[in-house]
């Protein structure tokens, strides 16, 4: 049973048929190990090379600057641990933001255990990092800055190019987690001024379990996975050839239709935001009103809790999420929402609806139709509701 309305594209996207078709030969016939010198290995190697060229070209990079990984999390870990360990001699201070994905956030916390000092920059109520605060946080021993390109929960797009400009002349590495932007908005490593950039295939209609890290040439990085000489010694392990071909194919398709898809999504997004804000009282929009991902809508509904909202939506055929899908196992409200200054009980009532390339006006109409009733019903069940409405 497929949900009729899938609105959780920030969690993962359905793989495109064209991507599957591109992968299939490398799952079956061309099964060679790309490190082998005989014909069937060379076929795999060619596919790998072509995929690397494609990804590099799209990002404005060189082929040898692309390292394929098992996903966004590995790319983030490789970037941050790899850069931090390789710069040990130079310093031990890292700057990041309070709203990073756990793959960056937890990795920085982990490094604190190993003698690194990390500054977690606060963000504005709209989830913006102030480039000035990055500049102000720099110390002589700062070796790395990691600020995400766009936030996965609230959709706010960060001023990466501005931060890149501040860091350009300094010998501080700059990483951005672009998992939510690559394939959705233009991403060019030169324009952003980054040394390291993470992406993940399944966020743009490619396969799960494959990602990439851009590593600007000359950037020293310690491998996370040691072993064979794959990926120019920066990432060991037999390459996921089919996955890599799938990632490159999906990225090419996403970039080709990006402008059109983004414009359509922005329209639907804005309609959804406005209609919900006007029809459902005590509702807040999370994230920035305009500097946000084309497909991201994030609300907090006061007096109710997110999971029960999701279950109700699921029963109506609407798939959505509350906070990051990755963290749904935890009981703590999202650190991103708390960083916006929201009190705990309001952060618990968050709903993220993320649009995709197939999302239609009808889908959005259905949500607008169904959502107010569900919220109202849950509020009526909530012991917080009555009291507060009286107070207001």
């Amino acid at each position, binding site marked *: 049973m497929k949900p009729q309305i899938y609105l959780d594209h920030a969690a993962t996207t359905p793989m495109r048929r064209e991507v599957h078709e591109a992968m299939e030969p490398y799952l079956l016939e061309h099964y060679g190990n790309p490190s082998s010198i005989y014909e069937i290995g060379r076929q795999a190697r060619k596919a790998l090379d072509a995929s690397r060229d494609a990804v590099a070209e799209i990002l404005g990079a060189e082929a040898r600057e692309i390292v394929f990984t098992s996903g966004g999390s590995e790319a983030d870990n490789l970037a941050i641990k790899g850069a931090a360990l390789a710069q040990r001699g130079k310093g031990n201070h890292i700057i990041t933001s309070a709203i990073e994905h756990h793959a960056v956030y937890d990795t920085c916390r982990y490094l604190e255990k190993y003698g690194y000092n990390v500054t977690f920059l606060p963000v504005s109520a709209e989830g913006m990092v102030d480039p000035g605060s990055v500049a102000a946080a720099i110390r002589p021993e700062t070796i790395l800055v990691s600020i995400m390109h766009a936030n996965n929960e609230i959709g706010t797009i960060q001023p990466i190019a501005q931060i890149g400009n501040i860091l350009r002349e300094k010998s501080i590495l700059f990483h951005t987690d672009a998992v939510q932007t690559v394939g959705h908005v233009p991403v060019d490593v030169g324009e952003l001024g980054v040394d390291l950039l993470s992406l993940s295939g399944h966020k743009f209609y490619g396969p799960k379990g494959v990602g990439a890290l851009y590593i600007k040439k000359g950037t020293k990085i310690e491998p996370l996975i040691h072993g064979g000489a794959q990926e120019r010694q920066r990432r060991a392990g037999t390459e996921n050839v089919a996955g890599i071909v799938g990632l490159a194919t999906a990225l090419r398709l996403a970039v080709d239709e990006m402008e059109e898809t983004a414009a359509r999504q922005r329209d639907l997004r804005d309609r959804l935001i406005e209609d919900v804000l006007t029809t459902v009282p005590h509702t807040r929009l999370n994230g920035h009103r305009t500097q946000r991902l084309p497909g991201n809508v994030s609300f907090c509904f006061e007096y109710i809790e997110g999971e029960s909202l999701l279950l109700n939506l699921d029963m109506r055929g609407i798939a959505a999420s509350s906070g990051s899908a990755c963290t749904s196992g935890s*009981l703590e409200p999202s650190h991103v929402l708390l960083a916006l200054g929201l009190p705990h009980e309001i952060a618990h009532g968050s709903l993220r609806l993320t649009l995709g390339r197939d999302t239609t006006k009808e889908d959005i109409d259905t949500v607008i139709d169904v959502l107010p009733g569900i919220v109202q019903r849950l509020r009526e069940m909530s012991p917080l509701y009555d009291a507060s409405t009286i107070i207001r």
Partner: protein
Amino acid sequence: MYSDKVMDHFTHPRNVGEIPEADGVGTEGNPVCGDIMKLWIKVEDDRIVDCRFKTFGCGAAIATSSMITEMVIGKTLDEAKQISHRAVADALDGLPPAKMHCSNLAADALRKAIDDYLSKKKGAKVKHG
């Protein structure tokens, strides 16, 4: 993730609401953790004759609240006090491990409501005595 029983109670919660002139009220949880449960009881002859709830919380929190109201109506106060966390979860055909704390909330709120009733009664007796 959730059993059919949990989903049934979540979708069609029994005894939602307040009892205007309740004999006892109990609240458990706090908004920081994302779960608050409030439970009202009506008592006649040491027996719970009505029980209602309001809950802010996840699916499991709502289902356990609903479940406990069903379990408790008709029971004596002594019987009701013996309803364990485990019993609520079992009556729902189990809860996911991460959600087991929700069954605590419901049983604890019930206990608080009973205590509230008993202390009021004692207070009334003292006054009249």
